[in-house]
């Protein structure tokens, strides 16, 4: 192979040893070049691999972050649901259960007490106790002790009680009669007083005063008679002045008409308002 590789001139010039030396040198050179190339390649690949690993890491990190966020949100929502449900259960059904339980226990205890201590027994006991208390109070009121509890004393006490009751009824009856008599007497006195005071008065005034004062007491009549009479006079004057004005306004005949003077006198006499006025002024 070597023979074919080298030309004849080189074979003549180069000895076997020098050829070997050249071969070794060339091989070393090739080896070094290959090593250098491999080192370069390694470095290049290492850089690329680092970049690749970095990119993959970044990608995985972002994906994992998203996954963690999604899981967090999901879990948070579930927890919110759990909390709401818990609150609902605690506020509604738990309270209802509590109330029911308390009522059941209360009812059970009541039933148990009813069975153990019957209501009738309690009522009887309270009645006995109340009766004893009433009896003791009666003894105190009537001053009855064991020495006075004989039959004769009992009879006397009963008789006394009957008499007292009878007299009380009589007193009540007399009091009622007395009240009625007093009322009638007061009415009569008032009536007489009113009659005496109004006997010298005219019709309308008398009627008015009797109407106003007829149900009043004699003292009231004494105190208020003059005021009432004055009030009537005042009202009457007012009424008459009003009637007078109306009569003057509504009259048909004028005072300065000479022809109607004769008939004016006749009409004046016929007019009841003017008659009343004239009578009053006189």
């Amino acid at each position: 192979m070597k023979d074919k590789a080298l030309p004849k001139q080189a074979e003549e010039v180069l000895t076997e040893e020098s050829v070997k030396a050249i071969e070794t040198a060339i091989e070393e050179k090739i080896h070094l070049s290959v090593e250098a190339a491999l080192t370069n390649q390694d470095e290049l690949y290492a850089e690329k691999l680092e970049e690749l690993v970095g990119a993959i890491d970044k990608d995985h990190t972002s994906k994992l972050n998203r996954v963690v966020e999604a899981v967090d949100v999901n879990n948070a929502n579930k927890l919110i649901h759990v909390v709401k449900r818990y609150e609902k259960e605690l506020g509604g059904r738990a309270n209802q259960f509590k109330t029911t339980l308390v009522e059941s226990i209360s009812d059970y205890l009541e039933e148990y007490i009813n069975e153990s201590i019957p209501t009738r027994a309690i009522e009887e006991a309270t009645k006995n106790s109340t009766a004893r208390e009433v009896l003791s109070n009666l003894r105190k009121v009537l001053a009855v002790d064991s020495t006075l509890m004989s039959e004769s004393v009992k009879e006397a006490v009963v008789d006394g009680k009957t008499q007292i009751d009878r007299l009380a009824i009589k007193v009540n009856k007399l009091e009622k009669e007395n009240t009625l008599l007093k009322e009638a007497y007061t009415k009569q006195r008032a009536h007489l007083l009113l009659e005496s005071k109004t006997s010298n008065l005219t019709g309308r005034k008398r009627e008015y005063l009797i109407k106003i004062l007829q149900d009043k007491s004699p003292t009231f009549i004494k105190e208020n008679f003059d005021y009432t009479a004055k009030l009537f006079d005042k009202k009457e004057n007012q009424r008459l002045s009003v009637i007078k004005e109306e009569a003057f306004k509504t009259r048909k005949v004028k005072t300065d008409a000479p022809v109607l003077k004769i008939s004016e006198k006749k009409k004046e006499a016929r007019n009841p308002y003017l008659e009343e006025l004239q009578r009053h002024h006189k």
Partner: protein
Amino acid sequence: MAKQKLKIIKFIEEISSKNYAKAHKYLKSVIEDKIEKKIHHATEKPLF
């Protein structure tokens, strides 16, 4: 009645926390209240 219910609630609470002495106290008080109520009801009725 509200007072009795409160005592029953306390009784249940004490039973739940195994404090039997206090639970006994509350139960006794509830029963006393109930009997007292019955007696009071009976005394309100007139003797005659």
